[in-house]
């Protein structure tokens, strides 16, 4: 019992930390993006402070989580990374590429810790690790040395240049003060936005106003305004730094019940110290009559006094909002609008629970067919025809709702590909740092395309491999690229797009292209094809060679891409998800890999057929067409059965031969039947079947641990009336039936 309890704690720890680490990764990637093309040598890089804040919060949450779950190593590491991020957002440390690398490295340590916890439990990650200690030391060194580098530029404007009340400045937290100085230093205009907000809806109103101000500037601080007259309302003052003038700010505030004032500069030329008359800047939008009137108090330059009482109250609130982590170093981390309430509206669900739900839907559908049978029975009875009609109506409604339920559950299983793309971005970033002489421009598109969670999980490793291949084997050295007239930085692009019930992923690089001759030579050398076969091969057949086991065009294996053991595994993994991978390449110009995947594995359209007295389902995505056939038309070539279809020879396969099925004694050899034409890469194959039962949506189910992996069988499905049918793995059947093709395709 105790074990189960700790398992649950571990699972929750893992799923929560994974989510936060993913968020941290996204923040860091966004920061890294913002850094692109800037010269970091002297000033460090300035990025949206919200990104740094978000990263800071993520690490802070990880720290809290680690403390709660007793994962000492993560706690220890988070504490120091948090300090670094804190110093970063307070401007004590400059954002250099080195610092960014350290932060990315933190993600890897987090993942290592999570993996260890997943494998060996929460306690496993408690003892100190030399790896993490070394990392922490480097983090601390970086935090300290970088701090020394920061010099205060002399002749820059300071807070004193602005007509700001010292009392107000004193009430700011260290971080807010830093942001205020930063805005002043970079020559921004300062604005005060005064508003009175009803207590009932203050959080919503504040979020709204923050959101509308975000595009025009930076919200430096939100402080309580002068005491209001209305006890139901609270006066707040937003301090905003913005490069824009006051009219832009007024426009941004829009209809919100707030007033905008620009803070005048002191001691500056009259031209720049454009003090604005209140009437110019008062929000001109109509004020919602249900809201209390805006308190118009104070004019430009006269700052409302922030009483000590109010600022104490603010500190109290912030501490409460900070989750009371009580580690004492919380200075400067109070965040306005930061509450204990979870921001995200999502629920994490174990995918197996969704499988259970999906099973229930399937059973409901079967129950429904049972009811349909009852209905049909009922309809034959003239007396009860009326009742039958009513039942039919109800059944129709039930069908509709079942369809909606099924679609709803499927929608829950869908997750955006961006999750995978983020991981890939990180790998590319690291590789391009490590791979000497290669600069990689990684382009991602279509990250919002959604796929079944199970497919996404299975997809990360193959995609990772393909991207690594593209960088290692595809993109040339910079010198060679320049010599070929290409840009020094190689481009690797990954894009996703939904087409009907499929998602198409394209991985493209502008590198070497595939050397087909080298592939062919190696395949011959390894005895995988004969020279005769090689002579007849089309270009596409040659590309397909790279999916043969053990074939790599590189003589030397390297750390990242290995020895060419990968491509056949990639292909197997993708076919396991009922996907297809195709290759196209232009020598010297690049390679494009196209992966087509079904959106979900849970429900597919299938053609139900009968052969040798058995019923099978064939996934419709592999069926090109089906046609009737008089068996007299069957010819043989080298004892293999074929027919001629539209002037092309179509090889035939009988399921009873492949699966060694005994035809029932009372079932004579048929004289005619059907051919189901399936596609296998560039080749086609005809499955000879006795009868077509029809087309229907099926839920594919695993045969279980013992029976899964039988070649040619993808799974099973329920057809109703307690009847199950096997779902064919067409690709495997075809590969087996035509070894010649499988070697090539």
């Amino acid at each position, binding site marked *: 019992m105790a*074990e189960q309890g700790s398992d649950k704690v571990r699972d929750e720890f893992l799923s929560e930390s994974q989510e936060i680490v993913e968020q941290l990764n996204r923040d860091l990637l966004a920061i890294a993006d913002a850094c692109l093309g800037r010269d970091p040598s002297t000033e460090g890089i300035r990025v949206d402070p919200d990104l740094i804040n978000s990263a800071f919060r993520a690490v802070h949450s990880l720290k809290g989580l680690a403390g709660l779950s007793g994962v000492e190593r993560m706690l220890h590491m988070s504490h120091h990374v948090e300090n670094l991020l804190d110093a970063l957002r307070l401007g004590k440390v400059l954002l250099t590429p080195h610092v960014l690398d350290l932060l990315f490295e933190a993600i890897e340590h987090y993942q290592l810790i999570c993996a260890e916890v997943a494998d060996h439990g929460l306690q496993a990650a408690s003892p100190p690790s030399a790896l993490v200690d070394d990392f922490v030391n480097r983090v601390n060194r970086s935090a300290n040395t970088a701090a020394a580098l920061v010099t205060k530029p002399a002749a820059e404007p300071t807070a004193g240049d602005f007509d700001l009340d010292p009392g107000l400045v004193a009430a700011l937290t260290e971080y807010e003060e830093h942001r205020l100085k930063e805005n002043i230093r970079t020559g921004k205009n300062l604005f005060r936005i005064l508003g009175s907000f009803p207590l009932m809806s203050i959080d919503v109103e504040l979020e709204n106003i923050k959101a509308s101000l975000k595009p025009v500037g930076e919200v430096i601080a939100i402080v309580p305004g002068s005491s209001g007259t209305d006890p139901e309302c609270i006066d707040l003052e937003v301090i905003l730094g913005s490069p824009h003038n006051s009219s832009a700010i007024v426009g941004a505030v829009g209809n919100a019940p707030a007033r905008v004032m620009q803070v005048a500069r002191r001691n500056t030329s009259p031209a720049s110290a454009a003090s604005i008359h209140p009437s110019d800047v008062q929000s001109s939008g109509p004020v919602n009559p249900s809201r209390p009137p805006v308190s118009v108090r104070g004019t430009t330059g006269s700052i409302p006094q922030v009483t000590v009482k109010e600022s104490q109250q603010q500190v109290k609130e912030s501490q409460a909002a900070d989750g009371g982590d009580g580690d004492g170093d919380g200075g400067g981390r109070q965040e306005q609008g930061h509450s204990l309430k979870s921001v995200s509206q999502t629920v994490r669900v174990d995918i*197996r629970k969704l499988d259970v739900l999906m*099973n*229930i839907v*399937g*059973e409901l559908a079967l129950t429904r067919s049972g009811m349909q049978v009852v209905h049909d029975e009922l309809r034959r009875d003239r007396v009860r025809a009326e009742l039958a009609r009513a039942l039919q109506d109800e059944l129709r409604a039930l069908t509709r709702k079942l369809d909606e339920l099924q679609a709803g559950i499927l929608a829950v299983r869908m997750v955006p590909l961006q999750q995978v793309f983020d991981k890939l971005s990180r790998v590319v970033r690291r590789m391009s740092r490590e791979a000497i002489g290669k600069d990689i421009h990684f382009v991602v598109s279509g990250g919002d395309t959604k796929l079944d969670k199970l497919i996404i999980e299975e997809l990360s490793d193959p995609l990772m491999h393909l991207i690594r291949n593209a960088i290692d084997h595809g993109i040339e050295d910079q010198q060679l690229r320049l010599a070929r007239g290409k840009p020094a930085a190689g481009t690797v692009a990954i894009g996703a797009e939904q087409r009907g019930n499929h998602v198409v992923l394209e991985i493209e690089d502008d590198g070497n292209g595939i050397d087909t001759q080298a592939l062919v030579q190696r395949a011959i050398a390894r005895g995988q094809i004969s020279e005769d076969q090689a002579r007849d091969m089309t270009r596409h057949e040659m590309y397909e060679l790279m999916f043969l086991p053990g074939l790599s065009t590189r003589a030397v294996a390297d750390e990242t891409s290995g020895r060419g053991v990968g491509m056949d595994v990639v292909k*197997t993994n993708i076919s396991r998800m009922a996907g297809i991978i195709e290759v196209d390449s232009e020598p010297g110009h690049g390679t494009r890999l196209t992966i087509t995947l079904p959106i979900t594995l849970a429900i597919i359209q299938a053609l139900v057929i009968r052969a040798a007295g*058995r*019923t099978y389902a064939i996934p419709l995505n592999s069926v090109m067409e089906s046609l009737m056939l008089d068996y007299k038309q069957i010819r043989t070539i080298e004892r293999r059965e074929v027919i001629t279809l539209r002037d092309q020879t179509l090889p035939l396969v009988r399921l009873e031969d*492949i*699966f*060694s*099925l005994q035809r029932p004694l009372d079932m004579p050899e048929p004289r005619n039947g059907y051919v189901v034409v399936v596609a296998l890469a560039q080749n086609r194959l005809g499955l000879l079947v006795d009868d077509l039962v029809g087309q229907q949506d099926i839920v594919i*189910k*695993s*045969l*279980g*641990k*013992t*029976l899964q*992996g*039988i*070649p*040619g*069988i993808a*799974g*099973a499905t*329920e057809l109703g009336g*307690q*009847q*199950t*049918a*096997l779902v064919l793995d067409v690709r*495997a059947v075809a*590969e*087996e039936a035509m070894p010649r093709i*499988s070697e090539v395709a």
Partner: protein
Amino acid sequence: MAQASGPSPVYESGGRHPTGELRLQRDVLTFHIAEEEYGIGIEHIREIIKHRLVTEVPRVPGFVAGIIAVRGQVMPVIDLRQRLRMRTAGLSPKSRILIVSRPAAGHEVLSEEERERFGLVVDRVNEVVRIHEIDIEPPTVLSGKESEFVEGIGRVRNEVEESARREARFGPGMITTEPQRIIILLDLVKVLSFEVMRSGRML
């Protein structure tokens, strides 16, 4: 459709006891195959269903009759006669499929839902009996081929007290046990362990 719920509250989940933990007695579901009476610990039995259409699966050993779906879950069905190397028999109205879950192997910790399920075709289901550990002999008394699936040979004591207790527990109307009744206790782990054809190309 009889349904056996969860493990017996009296005992640890049975079958194998690598720890050598002391169990005084165990509850066993008995059933007939040919002329012999076999038993499986009731903690492994999930459900007993009437025989239904089994879908044949290619490329599996002959004793795998195929698959069925029970409450949405697909599972292999094993013809226990063939598994025990006996001649297969036609179906009779008394044929049943025992739905069992694979006992945990070694130290693996699996929840009931995560365990793989199997259907076992038997000729006839008999009853649940309680067998004392001291009445179980090791399978070495047999030298026949089937001993590879036998965990032990159990003897049911024919005591009045015993049948009264059983009647109290399982309700009246139970068949009175014959003297010297022998029950062959199956080693479920071994019965459920087998390989199917997997081409190297597929893996």
